[in-house]
Each structure stands twice: as C-alpha cells, then as structure tokens.
C-alpha cells in the first residue's frame, strides 16, 4: 500500500515544489536523480535505496521517518583494504574458526529503529553473514559470518555503502573489563540480598518474641543456618571493602572503608559468639542488610554512559593501519609496525600516523586537534609533517622519519600525568568523615568499656557495650550518603547533557579556584564561522555561480560558503579544478570563476582568513571568515568573574595553540591581555596547569583535543566540550554537550549543592547515632532495635540525599 501511494505521488510533483530525498529527507538540488519514481538528493542515497529495494528491505523506510543516512557529503566509500591483513583481522575479531567468525563494529550513524531493523537483516545483503545483533545504546552491531563466503572487509564495505561506516579503532572495543566488574557487583548484591532476606526469615521467631522453650532446638538450627548464609556475604559480597581497607592501612591513609570493616567484623564476630554460646540470636540480619545497602549504593553511583568513554588516548584517534608502498605495491601495515623510512600514502581526510617528510604531492594539513591551529597548514614536498594532522587535499606520499611511538605528539603520552594513580580515587569528603568516625567509635567504645570494666567490674557488659558501639556508630550512613546523593546528581546532570566520570568529580567541580580555557573548539564553535562578504554587492547570478563552484568541493571553507549562501540554487559547472591549498576554479554560465586565496586569484593584498572571488578578469571581493564565540560565553564568564552573584572572582586564563588572530574578540571576556596566552604547545599547556597547582590553586580546565589532553589530565577537573559526543574525546573527567555550555554555572551550583547535602546528611547521621549510642553504652542493644534502627537510618539518609538533590536540581534548572 505504502509503495503504491508513493508511486502515484512522486512523479506528479511540479518542479517548483521542494523535492525531498526519499532516502535521507534532505532537500534535493534538482529532479534529475530518480530511481523507481523516487527522487534523491545524491547518487549515494539513490544507490542505498537501490540496494535495499533489490533485497526487499524497503520496510526500512516505513519504520522511522528519518531513517536514511545522507551520503551526499561522502566522496567515496573507503576501501578498508587493511582489514585483509591477517594481523589486524586477528586483533579485531572476537572469535574465529574456519567456518565462523564474530566481530563487533561501532557504527556512529546508528540513530533509530529502522537502523536496528536494517542492520539485523544484514544477512539479506550478504549471504555470508549468519547473524547480526545490534546494541542500540552502544551503537554497536555484532556480526557473525562465515569466513569462506565473505570477509571482514566485505562486511565493512557493505556497511559503509548503506550509510553506516564503521568506526574501526583498536582501543574502543576493549570495554569488557567494566562489564565484568559490573557483573561481579551484581552478583555480590544478589548474594547479599538473598542472605539478608533469608536471615530475616530465620530471625522471625526472635522478632515476634518466641522464647527458647517453644522453639529451643529450632532456634539453634536457625542460628547455624544464619551463620551459613552470612558467610558468603562476609567472604564474597563484602570482599572489596576489606581489600580497600587493607590498602588504606598499608598506605597509612585512613579511609571510609576502615571503620566500615570494623563494624562488619564487630557485627559478625559478636553474632557468631552469641549463636555458638546460645546467649542470643546475633545481628546477622543487620550485617547482611548493611552489606546489601552499601553494595546497592556502589551500584547506583557507578552510572555508566555506555556511549561515552573517559579514558581514550591517542590510539583511538589514530587509524589502525596505513598504506605503505613496498616495491611499487600498496600494502596495509598496522600503525604500530610502521618504521622510519617507510613510504606511506595518505589520502584525503586520513590522519598522519607518524612524523615524516612529504615526498610527493602538496599537503593541506588540519592540525586542529594537535596544535589548536584552526586553519589548515600548507606543506610542500621536502617539508616535515607531524603525526596527528589530517590531510584535507588529494593523496600524498610521506616518507616516515620516526615510528608512531616516537613521534612528536605521542611522546606526550609518556608523561607521568598519564600514569594510573590507583588508590587515590576515594573521595576526600568521605575520607575525612571516615577518619572522624573511626576515632569517635574507638574513643566512645573505649570509654564505655572502661566504665563497665574498670568502674563496675563487669567485663561481660564491657565487651557487650564496646561491640554494640562499634555496630551502632557504624559509618554506614556516611558510606551511603555519597553514593546516593552524588550518584543522583550525576544522573541529573547526565540527563541535561553534562556527563561526569564518577562521583568524586562532583566534589572537584564544587571546589576550584582557577579556570583555564583552550580556545579552538571550546570558546569558539568548531563548525560554525561568521562569513561576511566584503566588496561590491553580489548580483543573484554571481551568487549562483559562486555557490555552484563551492558546491563541487569538500574543503571546509567551501562547505561553509555553501551554508552561507543558503537557498541560492546551483548551476552546472564545467572545467572544475581544485588546487590544493589554493582554491577552486571552473566555468559556470560561460564565465570563468576563481574562489580561493589572494595568491590564487592574483589579488594584490595578502591576508589569511579571506576567501577571494574572481570572475573573469575582475576581483569581486572577498569573504571574511571569523570564529564565532560559543553562545552563553557572557553568562559563563560573568559567573566565573563573580559578576552574576556577589562572589569572589576566580581567575580565568586562556591557553591556546592558535595564533592571536582572535585576541580582540576574546579580550572582553578575559579582561586583560595578561591572562591570554597564544601559540602554546601541548607541553606548555600542561606546564601552565602544573604551575597554577603549585601555587595552591585547584584548576578547572576546558579543552577538546589531543593538544590539551595532557593539561586536561593534569588539572583537578578536566572538562571536554564536545559538539558530538561520539567523536574523539581525549581522556577527561567530564564531557559537556556543546549546546549546554551556557548551563555551566547551574551545573557548578548543583555540584556545590550536592556537597552541601552530603555534609547535612552527616549531621543528621550524628543525631541518629546519638540514639543508638544511648542503647549501646548501657549494654542493652537488642537485635530487634539494631535491625530496625540501622536500616531505618540508612534508608532515611538515602531518601534525604536524593530528595534534596532533586529539589536543588529543580531550583537551578527551572
């Protein structure tokens, strides 16, 4: 039915109406690209439709309106020749036997239910594929195939040809460690929960006050049963707390886990003693319940942003393989095998894997991720090219002078800041509170024991009181407050486009007293520029000619020019030529046009950032291209500089790798020239942050690329501003969606509120403990009171923390 309707409608459209591509719903430039009465914006989209149509997969278009992925700006489908290399294949495959293989691809283009449907029907497009499963949140597809009938490369090419180009990186698929960890935590919670529920059942007679006469032998059996149930809780579920406490003792740092483990041990040992001497029922229900609650808190605070990664290093930015020229043939070689003197071929939009010297071709290298330089750099044969740059023009040949590991950029990763600092991840707030509680518990316990034993001479009550204090003044409320309160705040922020790595970072965000910005892509917008034409006003015909010409080129400036010219229609172009690094020329409507640099159009003036237009012998003028500051910059800077509220201003610095061409635009934000540094290399940025820290400052740093990765890692809180969180983001503590930048002051206020709530809940916890202590010091803590008081205080703490957090969020994000 659906197809029939479409058939009847499509050809009847008059040419004045806007034609929409059947595949990607973009506007069609003309009505010339037609297949089966449907219009398409480009040959790429038409091809996808034809592939799907011949395989009876057009249901794709019915499931979701916006299904198709536009292929208009893709010049060619990558060949993936390196996937035929056995070594690379072996690294990527999860499983391989002679008849079956399994691979997981990351497909950044996946966006709707139609994508899932099409990708899971991949076997229709390639008979060698036996099964395909999609994980939508992770944007991954796991493909099983028969290596005799198809190959890894065929599948990758097929995926690309239908619009889902796989992003093949060696490092981003090794996230199984976190999955395993989370699974283990789940199992620990299950064991603790199971034991908790059943020990409570076993304690049921005790709760209702049945005495030993009625159920004497049962009491013993239930007691032993409880011990059997509690053992796996102590040995398996609570294991990590003991390990962490032991590490704390070894490194002589009192952390929150030490008083926690003291409470665990006191609970367990006293219960065992009571049960085996038949003097009581013990507190094993409280013990299992406490462990269960604590583990649940741990689970809650480990919010995972399945699509995001905070640990990416340069390896996930670099390609997997490079095309090396050997005896006149092109061979794919894994990048870590590249050596000095290898000759590699780098095509358009590919990244240079190692430092080298350009031998053939002219290169236009986009170093924006490496140096922060926003404009492509022209490189001539014989000149040096550095790793990390992206070639924008045609294919070039580069003779390597260094291997990847020794290249200028990658050497930065050998810096100490990138070494893992284990054991230092615990929250300062929890540690301080833990320290305080440890001493409080020990002091109170000792006092009570001294009173009963020394003063009254009653050793039995002395031991009772001492252990009861250890149990009651258990820091569980403290240990629960941070995971639940701050975990909740992380979730709230995540929903609003600000993704924090872990709960400790909420504290870091609440306490900073210096801010460092990197310019490119953080303060300025990456893909948007302000373009103004300077010169005599252009006639509509001239605009058509300029746009037609620019439309032929994939260069970033040409693309921006097309966007600027908006709805201007295009005309056919003949004799089109693109001169790498200079400009483009062609004949439109019988007039020869040049668009490009001053040299290219032979203008007398010379100025970078200008795109000149020449028609025939006349220079019409130039387009001036300027960076645009991010929206909300006023607000954010006003906040930091204490203008919005009566607060102490925080020093704000600019450390940019770019030249100072935008200094004038930045100056109003930063106040004075002194706080703005330009032409800073990656190491300079890192040193700058280190210097601030040595002066006792806590540094909040904003960055976006490889060039500031070291500084981000060194800073107390490194935030990456990302226009597309799927793209490369270096190692950092938080990722902020670019369009949420103006909300930054609210996010900071919310994290401050979070820390405040935690402190308040500590105060409430002290109050609760005072009640418990009054029972404990008198040596009259019954299991029933413990079983009620402890979960009640813990749960009320959780509710308090989360409720206050939600309330604060509602206030700040109204």
């Amino acid at each position: 039915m659906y197809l029939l309707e479409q058939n009847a409608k499509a050809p009847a459209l008059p040419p004045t109406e806007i034609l929409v591509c059947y595949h990607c719903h973009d506007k069609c430039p003309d009505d010339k690209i037609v297949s089966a009465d449907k219009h398409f914006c480009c040959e790429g989209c038409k091809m996808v439709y034809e592939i799907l149509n011949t395989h009876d997969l057009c249901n794709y278009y019915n499931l979701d309106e916006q299904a198709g992925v536009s292929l208009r700006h893709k010049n060619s489908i990558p060949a993936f020749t390196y996937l035929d290399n056995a070594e690379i294949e072996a690294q990527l495959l999860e499983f391989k036997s002679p008849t079956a293989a399994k691979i997981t691809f990351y497909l950044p283009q996946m966006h709707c239910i139609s994508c899932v449907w099409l990708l899971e029907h991949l076997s229709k497009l390639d008979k060698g594929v036996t099964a395909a499963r999609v994980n939508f949140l992770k944007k991954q597809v796991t493909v099983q195939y028969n290596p005799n009938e198809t190959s890894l490369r065929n599948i990758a090419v097929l995926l690309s040809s239908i619009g889902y180009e796989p992003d093949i990186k060696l490092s981003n698929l090794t996230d199984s460690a976190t999955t395993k960890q989370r699974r283990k935590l789940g199992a620990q919670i299950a064991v603790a929960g199971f034991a908790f529920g059943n020990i409570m059942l076993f304690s049921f007679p005790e709760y209702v006050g049945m005495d030993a006469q009625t159920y004497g032998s049962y009491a013993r059996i239930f007691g032993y049963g409880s011990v059997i149930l509690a053992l796996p809780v102590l040995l398996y579920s609570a294991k990590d707390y003991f390990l962490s406490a032991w590490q704390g003792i070894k490194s002589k740092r009192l952390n929150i886990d030490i008083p926690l483990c003291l409470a665990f041990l006191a609970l367990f040992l006293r219960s065992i003693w009571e049960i085996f001497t038949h003097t009581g029922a013990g507190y094993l229900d409280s013990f299992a319940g406490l462990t269960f609650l604590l583990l649940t808190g741990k689970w809650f605070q480990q919010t995972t942003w399945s699509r995001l990664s905070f640990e990416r290093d340069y390896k996930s930015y670099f390609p997997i393989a490079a095309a090396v020229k050997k005896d006149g043939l092109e061979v794919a070689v894994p990048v870590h095998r590249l050596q000095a003197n290898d000759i590699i071929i780098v095509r358009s939009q590919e990244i240079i894997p190692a430092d080298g010297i350009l031998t053939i071709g002219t290169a236009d290298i986009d170093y924006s991720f490496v140096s922060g330089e926003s404009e492509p750099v022209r490189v001539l044969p014989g000149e040096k090219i550095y790793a990390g740059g992206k070639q924008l023009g045609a294919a070039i040949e580069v003779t390597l002078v260094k291997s990847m590991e020794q290249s200028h950029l990658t050497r930065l990763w050998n810096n100490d800041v990138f070494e893992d600092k284990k054991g230092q991840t615990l929250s300062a707030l929890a540690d301080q509170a833990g320290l305080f509680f440890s001493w409080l518990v020990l002091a109170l316990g000792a006092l009570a024991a001294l009173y009963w034993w020394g003063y009254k001479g009653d050793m039995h009550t002395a031991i009772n009181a001492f252990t009861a204090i250890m149990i009651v003044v258990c820091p569980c409320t403290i240990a629960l407050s941070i995971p639940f309160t701050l975990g909740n705040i992380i979730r709230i922020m995540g929903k609003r486009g600000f993704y924090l790595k872990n709960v400790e970072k909420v504290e870091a965000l609440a306490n900073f007293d210096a801010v460092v910005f990197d310019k490119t892509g953080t303060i300025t917008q990456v893909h948007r520029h302000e373009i103004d034409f300077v010169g005599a006003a252009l006639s509509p015909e001239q605009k058509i000619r300029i746009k037609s010409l620019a439309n032929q080129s994939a260069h970033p400036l040409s693309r921006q020019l097309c966007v600027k010219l908006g709805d201007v229609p295009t005309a056919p172009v003949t004799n089109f030529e693109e001169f790498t690094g200079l400009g483009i020329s062609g004949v439109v409507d019988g007039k020869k046009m040049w668009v490009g640099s001053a040299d290219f159009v032979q203008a007398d003036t010379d100025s970078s950032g200008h795109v000149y237009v020449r028609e025939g012998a006349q220079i019409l003028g130039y387009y001036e291209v300027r960076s645009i500051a991010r929206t909300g910059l006023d607000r954010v800077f006003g906040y930091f500089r204490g203008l919005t509220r009566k607060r102490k201003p925080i020093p704000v610095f600019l450390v940019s790798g770019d030249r100072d061409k935008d200094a004038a635009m930045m100056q109003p934000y930063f106040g004075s020239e002194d706080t703005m540094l330009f032409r800073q290399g990656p190491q300079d940025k890192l040193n700058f942050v280190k210097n601030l820290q040595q002066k006792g400052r806590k540094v909040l740093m904003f960055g976006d690329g490889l060039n500031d990765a070291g500084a981000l890692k060194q800073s107390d809180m490194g935030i990456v501003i990302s226009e597309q969180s799927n793209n490369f983001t270096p190692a950092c503590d938080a990722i902020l969606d670019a369009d949420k930048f103006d909300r930054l002051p609210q996010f900071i206020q919310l994290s401050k509120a979070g820390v405040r709530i935690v402190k308040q809940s500590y105060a409430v916890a002290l109050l609760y403990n005072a009640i418990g202590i009054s029972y404990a010091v008198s040596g009259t803590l019954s299991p029933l009171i413990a079983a009620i008081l402890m979960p009640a205080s813990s749960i009320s703490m959780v509710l308090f923390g989360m409720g206050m957090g939600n309330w604060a969020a509602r206030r700040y994000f109204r």
Partner: protein
Amino acid sequence: MHIIFFLIAVSLLVALGFLISFFWASRNGQFEDDCTPAMRMLFEEKDESEE
C-alpha cells in the same frame, strides 16, 4: 505452629532457585542491553517463511 518453620525452609529453597536463575541470566548477558530488545519486538517478521 511448627509448620511455619517448615515453610521457612521451603522458602529458602525457592529463594535459592531465584538466586541461581539470576546468576544464570547475568552470565548469559541478559542485563547487558535493556534497550534494543524493546525495539526488536516491534519488527514484523513476515519474510522468514518465504525462504
């Protein structure tokens, strides 16, 4: 009254069954992806019989 104690023992066995099935499901990867199955169930598989 003693029946309660018997029932407690039975309930322990039932709970043990659930614990084991949870372990099985977790190991089987059933908690890995809680989004895609919800989409998958909307697909109409009309074509399987034709092949």
